[in-house]
């Protein structure tokens, strides 16, 4: 990372100490994000106080980047997976009864606001636009949560929101302008073979180069097929590919490892055949 950014990052960490109660939420992500340029873009935006929306296809490393950013900034992470029924109470919180009185039981957004956490809004476009409208005041210059019946919760100055979205998935929707305008948007590029190699090597240090290259080759083949509309994005599964590589390293026959981690995930017979054929060219 650029030196000036590293310096500013250090200053940020010095300025914003973390409450002991949430120290456990600061965890090192399992793998480092690979992609210097994108990382620098995201760090710059966050240092400027912006919230970021990571937009990209499957297996582009959106969540890994989000977790790496929280780790770099040394902030506690609050993760919310959005779904069609996500509503304001899931995000902000609901009433509860403590010590003889009704109080607000903070949801992840409110907790991030209090402790200066990094709130990861995963697949933000899965929820309905009206459900996420409660986030507007949190994300813009007002930086506060106004819960009816309670005091306003102001945002901790270190609080940031990182949303992720995959535009093409079935069940996703368009984000409305009001919400998008409150984010800076980073388009995540597709991982290149070299980056994938580094990623797989880091994850399975004992894996042979031959197996890594075969897995990458297969992943790239399937990705190209999905981009060109020949198959769906189901088999383009980097998590599955990582699992397959681990299994191969553990002694399973490569073909079997790929079958249980990738091919068998195609429940559609037509697609299964096409994927199976590609696998056949790569693995004996």
């Amino acid at each position, binding site marked *: 990372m650029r030196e000036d950014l590293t310096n500013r990052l250090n200053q940020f960490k010095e300025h914003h100490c973390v409450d002991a109660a949430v120290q456990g939420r600061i965890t090192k992500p399992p793998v480092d994000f690979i992609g210097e340029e994108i990382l620098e873009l995201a760090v710059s935006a966050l240092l400027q106080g912006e919230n970021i929306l990571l937009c990209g296809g499957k297996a582009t490393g959106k969540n890994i980047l989000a977790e790496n950013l929280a780790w770099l900034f040394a902030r506690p992470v609050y993760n919310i997976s959005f779904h069609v029924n996500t509503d304001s109470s899931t995000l902000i919180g609901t009433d509860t009864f403590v010590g003889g009185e009704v109080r607000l039981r903070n949801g992840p957004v409110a907790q991030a606001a209090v402790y200066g956490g990094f709130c990861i809004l995963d697949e933000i476009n899965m929820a309905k636009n009206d459900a996420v409208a409660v986030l507007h005041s949190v994300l813009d210059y007002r930086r506060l949560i106004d819960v009816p019946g309670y005091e306003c919760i102001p945002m901790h100055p270190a609080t940031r929101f990182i949303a992720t979205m995959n535009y093409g998935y079935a069940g996703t929707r368009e984000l409305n302008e009001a919400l998008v305008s409150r984010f800076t948007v980073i388009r995540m590029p597709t991982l290149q073979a070299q980056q994938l190699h580094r990623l797989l090597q880091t994850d399975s240090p004992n894996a042979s180069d031959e197996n890594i290259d075969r897995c990458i080759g297969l992943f790239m083949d399937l990705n190209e097929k999905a981009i060109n509309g020949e198959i769906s994005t189901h088999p383009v599964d980097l998590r599955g590919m990582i699992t397959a590589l681990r299994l191969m390293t553990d002694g399973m026959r490569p073909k079997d490892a790929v079958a249980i981690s990738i091919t068998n995930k195609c*429940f559609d017979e037509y697609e299964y055949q096409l994927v199976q054929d590609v696998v056949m060219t790569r693995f004996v």
Partner: protein
Amino acid sequence: MSIDREESLFLTVSEDHRERAYPEYILLMSDPYRKAGGMTAVYEGVILGGGDKLFGLEELNLWLRRHRYAAYNMHVLLPIVHMCLEYTVRRRLEPERPGIPAMAEQAAGQLLESDPLRLRHSSRGWLNIYWLTEQFPRCANEESRRVLKHFTGFEDVLQLFQRLVRDSAACTDARALVEQAVLLYKEVFTKYFAPDHSHDELSVFEISNDDMWEGEYLAPDSEEPPEPDKSDPALNYEKADMAANDVTLSEEAMAAIPEYLAQNFGPSFQTEKALAEIEHTVCVGIHEERRLLFTDGLPESAYEGTTARAGALKACRDANLSMLKGHEDSARQGIRSIEQAFQNALNLKNDPEVYRSDRGVLVNSALWKVGRCEDPQLFHKIFRQDQSTVVVELLIDASGSQSVRQSMVALQSYMFSAALSRIQIPHRVMSYCTYGNYTVLRRFRDYDDKPATDRKILEYRATSNNRDGLALAAAGIDLLKRREDHKIVIVFSDGLPNDMVSGRVRPDVPEKYVGDAAIRDTCFQVRKLRREGVHVIGIFLGDDGELENERMIYGSSFLRIRRAEDFGGSAGKRLSETLLLL
């Protein structure tokens, strides 16, 4: 673009996913292998993909064409080029795709076992057998070993043959590869092995686009012409596959189609511009140069008068109406039960689930428990269900095969539509059939029409062929524009997609809409819609033999019914299940 396994591998191995046709001589070279089916056809995708990646198929085609002009016998040269290309691709791509030799072995096993290329019938073919058994000794069988005995005393020639084929792996460009094959042609094949005259036929290689030859295509047709089957107006899949070669409309018949359609189906409800846009989007690939007609049907006046056409139309509608009249009570009951099934599904889907909890919405009436009970559970946790909206598209196959049960299909579709109207789910009902170049989509009711429009379904008429893939693609355009959260398409068909009356024959677009090509296209259109978030449900009324193909097309969202009488209820049931899963 719809693809099969061979094309899928071609695109992947060539690392170029643009849709493109094989050049002329490449097509001729690989045709026998692709027609052999099984692993031979699948592996052919690898060979062609590898050929494209290493040499470029256009470049190879260019050099093959030059040799054709130089009066080489392409019957002999093309198989040699194929052998060299296969070996080169296998050797050169093995490092990055180590599975290729295993695929080659399986393909070789098939070629030696069932001999689809008739290699055992000529001495030049024996060389192929020799090569396959030499490369894949495990595939050798009794028959191939017997053939190889003929080569006793020819050891030097075989050595030369092997060396020349192996040298092809070092070729760096298309020209070198073809020239290497030519060397084999001169030094081995034509020098030592006599031509095979036992199956002489007029060479298809003599007829080429390049020759500007305008005569009739005289390619041999080894298939027997199909037996006419007058008893069953709907030709089944196998028959259609054979018959398709012969049923082609003349230019005059084609010219008369638009007028015929206007008189029998009604005018288009799309503007010319909108129709051109839709055709530009969906009439591609196998549907290239096909046309669409979206119509709301004929005006009432078409049913009046004494003409034969008016009489036929009226008789058709009257038959449907009398079917409804005859089953009025059961139809009413059917509508109510389908409606009830929907209503239950919607209630389950939309009603919020409420639990007692220690957080959530405070329940005042439970406050007395404070200090008195250990775990007072003073709150309601409300789990709101999906309030999303749904739109349904019902596509009914109106091909001739449905004519025997036309009135029942009309009645059942009417019941289904009426039930959807009663619970106010926007839906469109269309039937589809294909006449010559035109696929007619007859709209009975549009998404937001009033319930009274449902009765228009009784104008349903079954005739001609069905191009399911094109109908799905065309219907999908309007559906995808809808604002509802969930979009569902229900296709009711009684057989496989089949458009055997193929309209204009185009030499550059050889595929007809029958058999595998039709299934592949429909498979692709279904998946394309699914990728865009549409739920496609197939309801099938047909023979056991076609079940596997229908399952291939619609996957798990597929339901088979035994009688047309079950259609309304089954469609309702499957839709209710889908609603619950949304």
